[in-house]
């Protein structure tokens, strides 16, 4: 039998990201598959090493761009842990609500193409329509649909708009409706079952060995959810279930995500009941003027303190307050202050511009959250400077994608793309 080598991607109408799968075919069956990644590599980690801590936040939006708030959250929590600061309760609840909204958009974006790949284009339209309502909420609150930058160090960017409750209720109603419709269209559909049951099965042992986390690991029946095992924010104060699959095939991966959407809605509704009025960012410490002046003279690679005019140091100190305003240590002022007041502008400048900014103590930290695809964690090494010395993203998709070649072996070419869709590869997160 003659074998054929086929390149799927990197630019192929059926690929939802730039990735190349080289498959060796025997007729229509895949004998061997080699996955080539890196087409969307843009040097996120190197860039982050050369940006101040505040400047990194917009870059995190572009990692998993269908659930940007979860990336913002992981990064902000890692820096907060490094700084040792806490955020007020309202900010935590808001982070949870918007994190779960992001998780729903992530799952909707994953399920929509699974249907589309198998010819059920209606599913795609229903899901994407429901997603629009969620993005309207994000738009009204954060000012952007995708590049939100909502979760900031020490809190969140802004409080919710006045009509938030209406928007939320409408969006959740639409999502529920879409999920119900898609259950009706797919969950017991014989064609769908035939195309997804027992396709690309991953056993529990194999899933663990490949470092799977999130819905893909849970579809094999293994119970692990960062929100339950290592609770953060207020996840231990709300009730929700962790849906599990049985066989670890494409159908289970679809089903686990569908059930997780319902659980996320439950979390949002409980959180909305428990949230109370209050500040959305932490009370900041104030940096005294002399300390700020000294800090701004300290270069990035100079460890020791620079001495200011040794002859007159004592004399100058009294004048520092007249030279410089008191500036915040960690937390950005509200946007309204920035545009309307001089002090707000100065505070903003002192945190954002290079050479200023916050300087966490020396140390290293790894903080994970449950992302759309699994454990999403930031590893940050600080050398006491204003930029991360090393920043590394533990991308859940990276480990999952390393198993894709094995998963599709022995199946038909037509099953390659639905399998690929069921693990929800996001190029921005995979290639960083």
């Amino acid at each position: 039998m003659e074998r054929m080598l086929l390149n799927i991607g990197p630019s192929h109408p059926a690929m939802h990201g730039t990735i190349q799968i080289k498959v060796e075919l025997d007729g229509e069956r895949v004998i061997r598959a080699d996955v080539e990644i890196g087409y969307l590599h843009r040097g996120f980690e190197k860039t982050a090493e050369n940006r101040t801590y505040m400047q990194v936040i917009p870059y995190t939006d572009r990692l998993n761009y269908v659930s940007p708030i979860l990336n913002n959250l992981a990064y902000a929590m890692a820096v907060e842990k490094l700084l040792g600061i806490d955020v007020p309760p309202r900010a935590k609840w808001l982070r949870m609500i918007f994190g779960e909204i992001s998780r729903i958009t992530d799952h909707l974006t994953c399920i929509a193409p699974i249907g589309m790949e198998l010819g059920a284009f209606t599913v795609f339209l229903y899901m994407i329509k429901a997603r629009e309502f969620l993005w309207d909420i994000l738009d009204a609150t954060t000012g952007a649909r995708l590049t939100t930058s909502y979760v900031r160090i020490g809190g969140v960017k802004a409080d919710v708009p006045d009509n938030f409750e209406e928007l939320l209720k409408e969006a959740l109603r639409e999502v529920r409706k879409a999920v119900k419709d898609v259950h009706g269209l797919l969950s017991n559909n014989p064609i769908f079952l035939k195309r997804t049951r027992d396709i690309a099965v991953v056993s529990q042992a194999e899933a663990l060995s490949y470092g799977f986390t999130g819905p893909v690991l849970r579809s094999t029946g293994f119970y692990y959810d960062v929100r339950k095992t290592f609770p953060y924010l207020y996840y231990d104060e709300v009730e929700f279930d962790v849906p599990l699959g049985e066989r670890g095939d494409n159908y289970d991966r679809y089903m686990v995500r569908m059930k997780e959407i319902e659980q996320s809605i439950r979390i949002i509704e409980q959180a909305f009941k428990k949230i109370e009025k209050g500040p959305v960012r932490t009370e900041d410490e104030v940096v005294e003027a002399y300390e700020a002046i000294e800090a701004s003279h300290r270069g990035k690679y100079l460890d020791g303190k620079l001495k200011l005019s040794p002859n007159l140091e004592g004399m100058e100190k009294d004048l520092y307050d007249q030279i410089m305003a008191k500036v915040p240590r960690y937390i950005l002022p509200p946007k309204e202050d920035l545009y309307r007041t001089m002090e707000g502008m100065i505070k903003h400048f002192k945190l954002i511009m290079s050479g200023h900014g916050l300087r966490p103590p020396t140390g290293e930290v790894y903080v994970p959250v449950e992302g759309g695809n699994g454990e999403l964690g930031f590893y940050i090494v600080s050398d006491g400077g204003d930029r991360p010395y090393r920043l590394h993203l533990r991308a859940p998709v990276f480990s999952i994608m390393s198993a894709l070649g094995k998963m599709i072996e022995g199946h038909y070419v037509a099953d390659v793309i639905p399998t690929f869709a069921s693990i929800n590869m996001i190029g921005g997160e995979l290639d960083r």
Partner: protein
Amino acid sequence: MVIEEIAEKYNLKKIEAADEIPSFYCTRDSITDILSEFHKHFEILLDITAVDYLGKRDKRFEVVYLLLSIKNRTRLRLKVPLDEGEKIPSASSLWKNANWLEREVYDMFGIEFEGHPDLRRILLYPEFEGHPLRKDYPLKKSQPRIKLLRPERE
């Protein structure tokens, strides 16, 4: 606890970390034994990465392993200091995702893993010169043009 027992057995040096994840220094020679001991208790290899301490520490690189035990609800960080050009044994026989994670470390830092089945670049292309996450890689360095397989048409 298992971690302390194994750490005592191999005489590992503890590191204080802000995130309260137990962290230890290992040596290059003993890392295979230590990892295979921990492999019995830690189901998931979360991450392998490296840090370049150029001019800051005696040994230039530190390879960082991050393990997760769901049963014991704990994570574990192991660090292996390496000099430039030193090789480190591969963990790909213990956890399967080590294959890609080690390829990424090789790609970004040029650290070679002994016994790795398929050590080549993963995120960058084969003709790329240098390893971008090294601290001495210039931020604005441009790469040479790749030779085309076929000559361009007029």
